């Protein structure tokens, strides 16, 4: 199958088949929207992790900033929702600029510095009561609007919006990876020093990946705010946004473009449908087990593992 056919099949499946099959079931659509929300963060996380070579434990920071920017613009500034969501992405990108000094740190130091930023943003959102409403949160955030007769405020409408954000994020990820920048980033991952020697400014490249990743995460956060119409600091900056995204991306294989999305859908649905009913308290333990098991037994993720199995049957193995 050529790539064009694969992509067309994926789009037809997600834009036509899924809504036709389960569009009338509000519960199922609600679950899928939540899974796609995680998927969006996971794609953004993987973009930074794979192309930028940096693990982040603080993507909740960008998610929360995006959510608050969009909610405040629409609530206090009277902005229409969709432009506000775009600006929310920009807001998260600006917030990521504030985290850039951390870029000169490598590995674990960067991962934990980002975590510190997430904590700082959460506390600021709690303390800046006049602007953010403090711990009480923001109520009745405007829902997604009706455009050209399409009601995006409904569950199904929300599905199309978040799906489009995630698909756009994957397209951006794919295009960057294929571009000259992608090549430079890949080289950087192999040997940063050698890449510097041939004239690639690796810090600038990393910085751009951080900005793009933050922008996507901010958009997803903004979507979520308008979808659930409510926001409070402990929710918007909750560690679960980072944890779920990391588990999804690792599970699906964060070196592939589609892996994080597939990971998010599988992980979230299995968690909600199979484990939450059995273990109402502490069902996240499953996520921890999954994360540990993947790192130990298949660091490349489940998707590449399956692909390798399949392509071994078909012919010579190729990189996913």
């Amino acid at each position, binding site marked *: 199958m050529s790539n064009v056919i694969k992509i067309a099949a994926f789009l037809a499946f997600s834009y036509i088949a899924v809504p036709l099959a389960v569009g009338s079931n509000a519960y199922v659509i609600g679950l899928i929207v939540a899974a796609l929300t995680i998927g969006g963060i996971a794609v953004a996380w993987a973009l930074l992790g794979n192309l930028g070579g940096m*693990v982040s434990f603080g993507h909740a920071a960008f998610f929360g900033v995006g959510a608050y920017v969009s909610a405040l613009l629409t609530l206090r500034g009277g902005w229409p929702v969709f432009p506000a969501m775009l600006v929310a992405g920009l807001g998260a990108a600006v917030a990521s600029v504030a985290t850039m000094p*951390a870029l000169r*740190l490598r590995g674990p130091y960067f991962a934990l510095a980002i975590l*510190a930023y997430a904590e700082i943003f959460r506390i600021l959102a*709690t303390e800046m009561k006049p602007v953010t409403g403090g711990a009480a949160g923001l109520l009745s955030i405007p829902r997604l609007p009706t455009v050209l007769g399409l009601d995006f405020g409904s569950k199904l409408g929300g599905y199309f919006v978040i799906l489009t954000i995630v698909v756009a994020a994957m397209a951006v990820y794919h295009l960057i990876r294929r571009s000259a920048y992608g090549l430079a980033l890949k080289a950087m991952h192999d040997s940063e020093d050698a890449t510097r020697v041939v004239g690639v400014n690796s810090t600038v490249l990393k910085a751009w990946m951080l900005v793009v990743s933050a922008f996507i995460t901010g958009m997803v956060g903004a979507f979520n705010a308008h979808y659930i119409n409510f926001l409070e600091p402990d929710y918007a900056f909750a*560690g679960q946004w980072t944890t779920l995204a990391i588990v999804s991306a690792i599970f699906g294989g964060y070196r592939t473009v589609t892996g994080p999305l597939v990971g998010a859908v599988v992980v979230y649905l299995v968690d909600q449908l199979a484990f939450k009913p059995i273990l109402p308290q502490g069902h996240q*333990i499953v996520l921890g087990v999954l*994360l540990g098991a993947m790192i130990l037994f298949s660091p490349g993720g489940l998707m590449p593992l399956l692909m390798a199995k399949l392509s071994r049957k078909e012919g010579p193995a190729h990189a996913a």
Partner: protein
Amino acid sequence: MLELTLQSLFSGVLSGAYYALIALGLALVFGTMRVINLAHGELVLLGAYISYTAEEKLGLDPLASLPLALAVVVATAMVVYYLVSMIKKDRELNSLILTFGIGVILTNAVLMIWSADIHSATTPWYHDATILFDTLFAMQAELVFAALGIILVGAVWWWLEKSWYGRALRAVASNRDAAKLMGVNPQLTEVLSFAVSGLLATVAGVAIYTAKVIQPAMGHHLTVKAFIITVLAGMGSVPGVLLGAVLLGIVESLTVTMASSALQELAGMVLFLVVLLLMPSGLFGRAKRRG
């Protein structure tokens, strides 16, 4: 005002003592294995909850529950070591994600076994107040565990500096291959570092249970605090860890006294970022590039 400030400095020092225990464990493991154990705070958490169960079900004094808590926590630390040692490729980042996952497992296991309720020690003696020099107030538990903490940190320092195993551990930390050539078994020192880190975590856990309140979500925060301290200290200096821990304790308690308790965590985070970005080798560490 002066009295308040002095009291706040004193409380900061007392918290610093058990922060030092946690941070030292994290730094030891990082030294030998180049692994930041993100499940370290959860080991402390586990120690605290074992102590709670021992007091609740067996009527044991928190100090008397130490051996039991030690057995469980050190055994858990050994499991963490075994899992981390299974990672062969890209260990620095993969172990970060692995131990993050173990942390999630431990936190949720505690949540499932003990529920989300908060607990604290019920033996009244520990909560009685002592007044030092007519002005400084402390709970007896805080004094006992601060003393124990400082003694333990001192003991670990002595052990690292003077004993054969301690030297072996430092040798592996500074140059693994050379240490191996000199007849040091790196695996053994790694196991040792994990065991000692578990021991320190246990004492810290019992200290927190006795002097403060415990709840399942605290493990993660403790890991972050310990990491902040090691950044302040610049990995690999025991007195540095103690000073960094006391510094964090003081900054936190001053923030609570001068501003608000809501800003306590913020103060630590800001301190962390400032030091990380302006003084990459920490306040007391040797100049060395991170990563």
